[in-house]
């Protein structure tokens, strides 16, 4: 209640407003009175807050629609909110991940609510196997040992004294899209279909620099990366990746890593399945063979139709998804940007095509300038809807010539029960009434 006025009579006024608005608003209303006071008036509080008429506006006859409290009829006639120590989103924009409340679980990024290519750090998807640990950066250390000349212990502050690099890369969980691949349903949103991918700017030190510091020996061919969470997560990584583009990261989008992204230190293996970018990194051990940890045997392996299972399937293949129009949008006739994201773990996306007739014809989409290799592009195809039933699809091609396959093609080579790496062409069906639903059976 810290943002509420302390003066008694005004508090009573405000309390009455709260009661009136609360009574008129459904419990899950998108915007609450409190947001408005915090957002529009903030600490200026009393006078301004009390002077904002808080009136519940019904939307036509539909009484169950979220009620938006009144805002000043003319914002140019009223002082705005004062400056704040930490910014907040507009009260009219409430993107949300999808936490299920488990510690071994995931929380998907709201792709349909995002534009451009950068994911705000607080909306980056989450996936962890034993919850988010609370780590004191002053006590956290990284141990590098095994086949090195000098086993080293580094503090977080020491890690930050090596020459830093900043790169923009996506991270995608290799389980991304499992539900939409196995059992596509018409009421799936972009978030539900592919929300286990995010893209941010990372700052850290090339792993190569740290390995030189410890004096990695030539015999080392694999290293083990270990996290400091409650399952002490471990993955085995070929040394070739370590000296190519691996980064020991401490910052994301200009600020220290968020706890759920690995604060204070994480590994970043660009273009590789997300699980290998071990968070809360506490140890690197250099050796000569993989350790066959639970996360590279029981999990993160891909059963195939020939009765085998692919192991160490690190690279994320090219993929794309239209993020608008998408379920649950409804269209009216006329022009719409068909826009979405495309990415590949094998370098850059060279082409994205959009079909508006379920794959009979394809059109090249415009691509935003890329922010880097192994970073997504946003594609847009400007489209005039004529009111007929349509299926919108997107198909990406990467610099190796790989073309994103249909779901049927993927099922043929991997099977419906394969466990990770789902990158089929997907899209959205537009019905004659304008309703948009997920179309996964390509």
């Amino acid at each position: 209640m810290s943002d509420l006025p302390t003066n008694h009579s005004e508090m009573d006024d405000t309390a009455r407003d709260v009661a009136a608005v609360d009574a008129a608003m459904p419990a899950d209303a998108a915007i609450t009175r409190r947001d408005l006071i915090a957002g529009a008036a903030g600490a200026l509080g009393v006078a301004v807050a009390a002077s904002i008429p808080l009136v519940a506006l019904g939307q036509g006859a539909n009484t169950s629609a979220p009620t938006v409290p009144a805002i000043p009829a003319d914002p140019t006639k009223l002082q705005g909110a004062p400056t704040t120590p930490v910014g907040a989103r507009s009260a009219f924009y409430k993107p949300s991940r999808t936490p299920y409340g488990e510690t071994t679980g995931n929380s998907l990024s709201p792709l349909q609510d995002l534009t451009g290519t950068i994911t705000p750090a607080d909306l980056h998807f989450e996936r962890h196997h034993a919850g988010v640990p609370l780590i004191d950066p002053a006590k956290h250390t990284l141990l590098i040992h095994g086949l090195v000349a000098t086993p080293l212990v580094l503090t977080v502050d020491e890690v930050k004294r090596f020459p830093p690099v900043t790169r923009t890369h996506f991270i995608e969980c290799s389980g991304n899209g499992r539900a939409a691949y196995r059992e596509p349903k018409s009421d799936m949103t972009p978030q539900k279909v592919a929300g286990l991918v995010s893209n941010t700017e990372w700052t850290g030190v090339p792993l190569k620099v740290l390995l030189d510091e410890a004096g990695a020996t030539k015999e080392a061919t694999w290293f083990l990366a270990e996290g400091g969470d409650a399952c002490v997560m471990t993955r085995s990584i070929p040394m070739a990746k370590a000296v190519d583009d691996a980064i020991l990261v401490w910052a994301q989008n200009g600020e220290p890593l968020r706890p759920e992204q690995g604060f204070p230190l994480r590994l970043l293996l660009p273009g590789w399945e997300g699980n290998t970018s071990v968070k809360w990194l506490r140890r690197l051990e250099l050796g000569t063979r993989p350790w066959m940890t639970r996360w590279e045997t029981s999990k993160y392996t891909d059963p195939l139709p020939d009765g085998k299972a692919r192991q160490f399937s690190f690279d994320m293949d090219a993929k794309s998804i239209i993020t608008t129009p998408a379920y649950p949008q409804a269209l009216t006739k006329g022009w719409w940007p068909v826009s979405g994201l495309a990415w590949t773990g094998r370098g850059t996306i060279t082409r994205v095509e959009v079909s508006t007739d379920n794959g009979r014809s394809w059109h090249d989409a415009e691509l935003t300038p890329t922010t880097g290799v192994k970073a997504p592009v946003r594609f847009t195809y400007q489209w005039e809807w004529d009111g007929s039933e349509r299926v919108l699809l997107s198909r990406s091609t990467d610099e190796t010539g790989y073309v994103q396959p249909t779901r049927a093609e993927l099922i043929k080579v991997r099977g419906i029960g394969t466990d990770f790496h789902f990158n089929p062409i997907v899209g959205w069906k537009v019905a004659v009434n304008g309703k948009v639903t997920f179309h996964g059976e390509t």
Partner: protein
Amino acid sequence: MRRALLISVALTVAACSGERAAPRAPSAGGFASIPARRYGLGRAATPEEIALRNIDVGPDGEGLPAGSGSAALGADLFQKKCSMCHGPKGQGMPPAFPQLIGRDAKAEGFKFSTDFKLQHTIGNYWPYATTVFDYVRRAMPQLQPGSLTNDEVYSLTAFLLASNEVIPMSATLDSVSLTTVKMPYRDRFVSDNRRGGKEVK
């Protein structure tokens, strides 16, 4: 001044060349070309602090500690410390709490790619027995990770392998015998053959 001039000339040239390609941000990686050097940061790790953290066990048995445990003792421990989440018969409560035990005929023969409802268990999927030891020691029981003694972990590993029909219920495991256990579906695991390019694999 001179610099600004040069930049504006460069921009004009780029604009006139009619290229649509966006300026490319720094490419990923290429870190291999960073010359090796030492900054003298950090300090040498002592053998004791390495031993404290170095809890991993390799498929060749490297890292397995002294100690031993029997499947019989493991059965008892499992009921006390694991069954509340994984079920008294290790049948689990998927998807949150994985099934650990099971060699049922339907799942047998590694048919997972055609039927996603088949549950992966230690007996019908896991390629290495050492992984059971390593994982249970570092992560289980979920709410008290790292609380088991090495003997207890050997016992639980023996019980999980025995109830998955990999070793006899009468078995006792230590660092030597655990290393010799071969898992039924070990040869099904192959390395990644995807290489990008036109072919979808």
